[in-house]
C-alpha cells in the first residue's frame, strides 16, 4: 500500500513536469502553428538566471539568493521576457512561413541560446541548493514522500487552475482560445493578433521558468541540457494529446510520466535500461490508434 502510494506520487510529480511543459508548447502551437523547439532552452536559461555568469566550476549564485517572494517573480519575468523577445525578434517574421521552416528557426534559436549559455557559464554543470527545506520528506499514510514531490503536484494543479481561470474568465483568455481555434476569424473580429501571440509567449515563458525552478530544486543542478529532455517528452505529449488541445496536452503529459514510472517499476532488471524503447513504442501505438491525438480540437482537422 505505501509502496503503491509512493509510486503514485512518483508518477504524478513526473507527469506534472511534463504536463507543464506540454501546455507551454501547446499554447504556442495553438495560436501560431509553431512547434517551439527552443522551449527547452528557455527552461535552461531561466535556471542559469539564478547564477552570475562565470566559467568557474563553482556556481556563483546571484539571483538565487533572493528570498522566494522576490526570486519567483524575477525568474518568471526572465522566462516571460526571453520568450516574448524571441517572438518579437524571430518568430514574428515567420507569420506566413510553413511549419517546417518555423520549426527549424526555433531550433536555430535554441542553438543560439544554448551556446550563449555555454560561453557564459562553460559546459560544466553547476550546483546550487535552492530552498533546501523542500528536499525534506513528509509522511503521508506511512509513506515518506519528498516534500518537493507534493509541492510540484500542488503547484501544477494551482497553475492549471489559474490557467483555466485565465482562459475561461478573462477577455484575453477568450481571445486566446478563439485565436488558437481559428486565427484569421479571430482577427476579423478585432482580436489583436500580435498581442495575443505575445501573451501566449509570455505565459509559455513563465511555464518554462516554473519548470526550471522545480527542476533545479529537485536536482540541485544547473545544466545546459536540463531543459531538453523534458521538452522532448512534452513535445510528444502535445502531439499525443491532440495538437493545440490544452486539456489533451495535460492528460498526455501525465500519461507519459505515469507510463515511464510504471515501466521502471514493472520491467525486469535486464530489460529496464530499455525502458524508453517501450515508452516510445507506446507512443507509436497511440499514434497509429489515434493519429489526431487523444483529444483533437473540433476544428483542428481543417487546419493541420
Amino acid at each position, binding site marked *: 500500500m505505501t509502496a503503491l502510494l509512493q509510486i503514485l506520487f512518483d508518477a504524478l510529480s513526473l507527469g506534472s513536469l511534463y504536463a507543464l511543459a506540454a501546455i507551454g508548447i501547446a499554447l504556442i502551437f495553438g495560436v501560431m502553428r509553431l512547434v517551439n523547439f527552443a522551449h527547452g532552452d528557455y527552461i535552461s536559461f531561466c535556471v542559469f538566471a539564478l547564477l552570475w555568469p562565470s566559467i568557474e566550476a563553482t556556481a556563483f549564485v546571484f539571483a538565487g539568493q533572493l528570498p522566494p517572494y522576490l526570486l519567483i517573480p524575477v525568474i518568471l519575468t526572465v522566462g516571460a521576457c526571453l520568450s516574448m523577445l524571441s517572438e518579437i525578434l524571430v518568430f514574428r517574421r515567420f507569420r506566413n512561413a510553413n511549419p517546417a521552416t518555423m520549426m527549424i528557426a526555433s531550433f536555430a534559436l535554441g542553438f543560439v541560446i544554448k551556446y550563449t549559455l555555454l560561453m557564459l557559464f562553460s559546459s560544466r554543470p553547476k550546483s546550487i541548493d535552492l530552498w533546501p527545506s523542500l528536499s525534506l520528506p513528509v509522511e503521508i499514510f506511512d509513506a*515518506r514522500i519528498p516534500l518537493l514531490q507534493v509541492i510540484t503536484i500542488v503547484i501544477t494543479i494551482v497553475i492549471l487552475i489559474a490557467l483555466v481561470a485565465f482562459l475561461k474568465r478573462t477577455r484575453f483568455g477568450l481571445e486566446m482560445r478563439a485565436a488558437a481555434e481559428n486565427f484569421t476569424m479571430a482577427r476579423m473580429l478585432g482580436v489583436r493578433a500580435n498581442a495575443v501571440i505575445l501573451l501566449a509567449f509570455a505565459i509559455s515563458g513563465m511555464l518554462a521558468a516554473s519548470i526550471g525552478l522545480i527542476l533545479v530544486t529537485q536536482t540541485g543542478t544547473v545544466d545546459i541540457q536540463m531543459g531538453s529532455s523534458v521538452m522532448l517528452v512534452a513535445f510528444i505529449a502535445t502531439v499525443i494529446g491532440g495538437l493545440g488541445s490544452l486539456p489533451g496536452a495535460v492528460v498526455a503529459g501525465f500519461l507519459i510520466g505515469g507510463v515511464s514510472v510504471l515501466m521502471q517499476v514493472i520491467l525486469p532488471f535486464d530489460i529496464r535500461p530499455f525502458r524508453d524503447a517501450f515508452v516510445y513504442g507506446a507512443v507509436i501505438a497511440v499514434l497509429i490508434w489515434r493519429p489526431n491525438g487523444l483529444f483533437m480540437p473540433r476544428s483542428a482537422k481543417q487546419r493541420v
Partner: protein
Amino acid sequence: MKKLLTGFAGATVIMAALGVGIAKADDIVVGFATASSGFMQAYDKPAQDAAMIRIDEINKAGGLLGKQIKTVAADTKTDRAEGAKAGLEVIDKGASLVVVSCDYDFGAPAALAAEAAGKVSFFLCAESIKAGIQGVGPHSFSASVLAAVQGATMAEWSYNKKKARTFYRLLDTWTEYNKGICDGFDWMLPKLKDAKLLGQDTFKNEDTSIAAQITRIKSLPQQPDAIMLCSMMPGVVSAVKQIRAAGIKSMILNGSGVSGGYWLNATPDLSDFYVPDQGSVYGDDPNSAVNDFNKKYKAATGGEPSSQYVYPGYVMIDVWAKAVERAKSTDADAVVKELEKMKDEKTLFGPRTFTSTLHHQNRGRYLITEVKNGKPGVVDEWTISEAIPVEYLMKK
C-alpha cells in the same frame, strides 16, 4: 553559385595559409586535439592546463633532449568528426605526442588518426580500458586510472574500513565510465566474504526524477549498508539529492566522477559520502608536493583545481617526458618501449605501470575522501589487494 565558389576558394586559401607547419625543426611538438568549446571543454581544459604546467617546468629546466617543447592545439568542438580533423591537424603541424580528449568516446577519433600516422597518443584522463591498446592501438595510452579500479577500491575499502556487508548497486547507464565503475565493484564483491548484494537498479543521467528507483530501495526488507552509485555529473547530483531527500541514510560510494567540492553546495548537509581521488584538491593531501602543485595551478590559471581530473594531465607529460629522455628520441616505437618498461613509476599522483598488454592502470593507490556535513576531506588511502585482470575487463 559563383559567389559561393569564390567564398569557398577564399576560405581554402586561409586554411592553406594556416595549415603550413609552424614548428621549428629543433622543437619537440606536443599536439593537443582537445575540446576548447562544447561539453568536453570543461573537462579537457583543466587537465590540459596541468599538462602545460609540467611542460613549462621541463622547458625551464632545460627542455627535453636539449630541445624546447612546443605546443599546438586544435579544437575538437566535442564532436567526433571534428575530433578526427583535429587529430590530423596537429599531426600535420608536426606533433610527436598527440594529446586527445579526456573521454574515450570523444578522444578516440583523434587517437585513431595518431595511431594511423604512427604517433604516440595519450588520453588526458579517459578511464575505459579501450583508451589504449585495446581500443586504439599499440601507441595509445591513458594518463588516468581505470574506472573499474575506483569501483573495486570503494567496495574493498568500505568492507574493510567501514564494515559494510550489504550493498546496493545503482547504475546510470549513460556512459561506459559509469558501467566501468560498476564492473570493478562487481569484480570485487564476490571476493569479499559475507558481502551481499541486496539489489540493483539503473537510471538515466538525464532522468529528472529517480523516484521510482528510490522507491525500490526503500521497499527492501533491509536497508543496505552502502549504495554503490555508478554515475557522473550532472545526473549524480540530482540522484544523491533525491536519495537523501527520501530519507535513505546508507553510505554512498562513488567513482572519481564526483571528485571536487564545487558541486556540494547542492547538498549542504551531505554525509557518509565517499569518493576515490588520485590527489586531493582540498588542500589536505598527505603529500605536500601535491598541495604545492595546487598552488602552482592556481597561479597559472587563477583558480584551484576543481577536481582530481586536473592531475592526469600533469602525470601524462611527466611519464612521457621520462620515456623520451630514456629513449633519447621522440620516435614513437622507442618511446612506447620505454613507457612499457615503467613499473610503479612514481608520479606526483600515485604510481604508474604500463605493460605491453595494458597502457592503463588496473590497480592504483587512491585517496579516500569523505564528505561530512557537506565538507570534503581526505580520510584514508587504499590500494586494492590485487590488480583487476585485463581479461575480465575486456569481457565487459
